[in-house]
């Protein structure tokens, strides 16, 4: 592993060394390091590229890291990772992908992740995306996340794009059942001519199922973002979608919400606010001694990463 690999691992998975516990590190389409434990087993798929991550019933306070590194241009990586989480678990999954592309040809990673979360289990899933490398080749990340939640389970999903990704289309599909709670937090930064589209489809199928989607995004330069959400309440349920965007320079963010309460007992809320940094926020920080530039950075950093 070289310096670039280590930097990517730090950025996308907060890894400073080889993790303890279960992990799988994928580089340029191949698994370069893997460890299973008795609680969390990682099994390579036979018929296609990817792994099954199997968490036994009752496993608590354990984590699994599955970062991906891509350092080749003219390379399209497609991977299928399936998570099978038993019942009564409490686990943290750190995924994420960093692309370093210094060539003039595109480099792309498409991760298709599916989560089967057992009864009364709690999962924290963090997926961070990041691109570097000065080449003119694009850094493209198109993740697909499918979530199936059984009764009483809870998932906290953080989807973060910290910069440098030329183009991304991020799709998330969730079906959630009785007494489940799904929290999705999305933070996206685009700059220059980057493009980002996110799409959420959440079906609240169970009684007292609950979903909260909060998206904070910043579009700088001439970048363009689209936020599309589709939330369907088919039972007595609660759904909330919030899309907040800050525009800098010539950046643009388009928000297209759809909420559909098929059940009369579903309560669905959508909020969206897109615009420049609020003037009063800038003024407040400047009155505390920050220059305008510092104040802007502070507001954006807090908005994206707090």
């Amino acid at each position, binding site marked *: 592993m070289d310096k670039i690999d280590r930097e990517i691992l730090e950025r996308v998975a907060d890894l400073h060394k080889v993790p303890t516990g279960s992990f799988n590190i994928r580089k340029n389409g191949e698994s370069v390091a893997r460890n299973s434990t008795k609680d969390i087993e990682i099994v390579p798929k036979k018929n296609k590229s990817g792994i099954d991550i199997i968490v036994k019933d009752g496993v608590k306070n354990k984590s699994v890291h599955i970062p991906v590194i891509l350092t080749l241009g003219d390379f399209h990586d497609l991977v299928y990772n399936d998570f099978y989480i038993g019942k009564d678990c409490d686990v943290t999954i750190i995924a994420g992908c960093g692309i370093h592309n210094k060539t003039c040809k595109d480099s792309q990673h498409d991760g298709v992740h599916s989560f089967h979360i057992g009864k009364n289990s709690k999962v924290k899933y963090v997926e961070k995306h990041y691109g570097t490398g000065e080449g003119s080749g694009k850094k493209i990340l198109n993740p697909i996340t499918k979530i199936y939640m059984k009764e009483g389970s809870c998932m906290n999903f953080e989807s973060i794009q910290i910069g440098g990704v030329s183009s991304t289309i991020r799709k998330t599909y969730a079906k959630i059942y009785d007494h489940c709670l799904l929290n999705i937090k999305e933070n996206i930064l685009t700059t220059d001519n980057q493009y980002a589209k996110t799409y959420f489809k959440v079906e609240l199928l169970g009684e007292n199922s609950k979903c909260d989607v909060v998206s904070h995004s910043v579009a700088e330069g001439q970048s363009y973002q689209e936020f599309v959400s589709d939330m369907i309440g088919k039972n007595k349920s609660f759904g909330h979608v919030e899309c907040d965007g800050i525009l800098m320079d010539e950046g643009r963010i388009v928000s297209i919400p759809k909420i559909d309460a098929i059940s009369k007992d579903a309560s669905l809320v959508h909020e969206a606010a897109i615009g420049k940094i609020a003037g009063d*926020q800038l*003024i407040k920080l400047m*009155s505390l001694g920050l220059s305008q530039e510092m*104040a802007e950075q502070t507001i954006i950093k807090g*908005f994206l990463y*707090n």
Partner: protein
Amino acid sequence: MLEIKNLNYAVIENGAKKNILNDINLTFKDNKIYVITGHNGSGKSTLLKIIMGIAQKTDGQILFNGQDISNISINERAELGISYAFQQPVTFKGLKVKDLLDIATSEKHNLSAMCDILSKVGLCAKDYIDRALDDKLSGGELKRIELAVTLARKGKLNMFDEPEAGIDLWSFENLTALFENLKGATNIIVSHQKRILEIADEIILMSDGKVVLQGNREKVLPKLSINACGRLREVNNG
């Protein structure tokens, strides 16, 4: 010392000029508490905003310790020691109470330092420093935090815009004590409350963008009519 000379502020509204402040002349000396009072819309907040640099005067002079500050930025004025607690505290998506305190003093505080600052305004640091500065905080909590952040700057010129608004009466005594302890700096408080007026060294009454009455408390207070709730009601121009 802050001197305001022949200050005017006008805006263009629907194509017509609207005067908001008219020929204001005021001197704020060191180590004193000045309370500005007057009807809603009389121009009190606008005056403070112009002093802070948030609004730009149309003409006139603002001298802070002899230096004309009318053309320097908000943060440069902050660096000179001018600080301003807003009438409407600002909320942020993504900043916590402790972040704002750190920014205000440009240092990282530990819990005990935060405790010192927040306990002054009656808040327990443990309960608040990790709270987001958003509208999940109550109006009174936001006002107290605004006050704490402003005090933390240890300014040479402190301006408080209706600091008592939303703060329960029980805490009033502490609030007035807080201001009395700020001697050593120049303090300007905008307020409608009798108990705040009572701690003033000088009172300034504004009406329609003008200063209509000013002088030491003993002289001015009896001329103000205050209703049963302790709020300023009307002027007795006697």
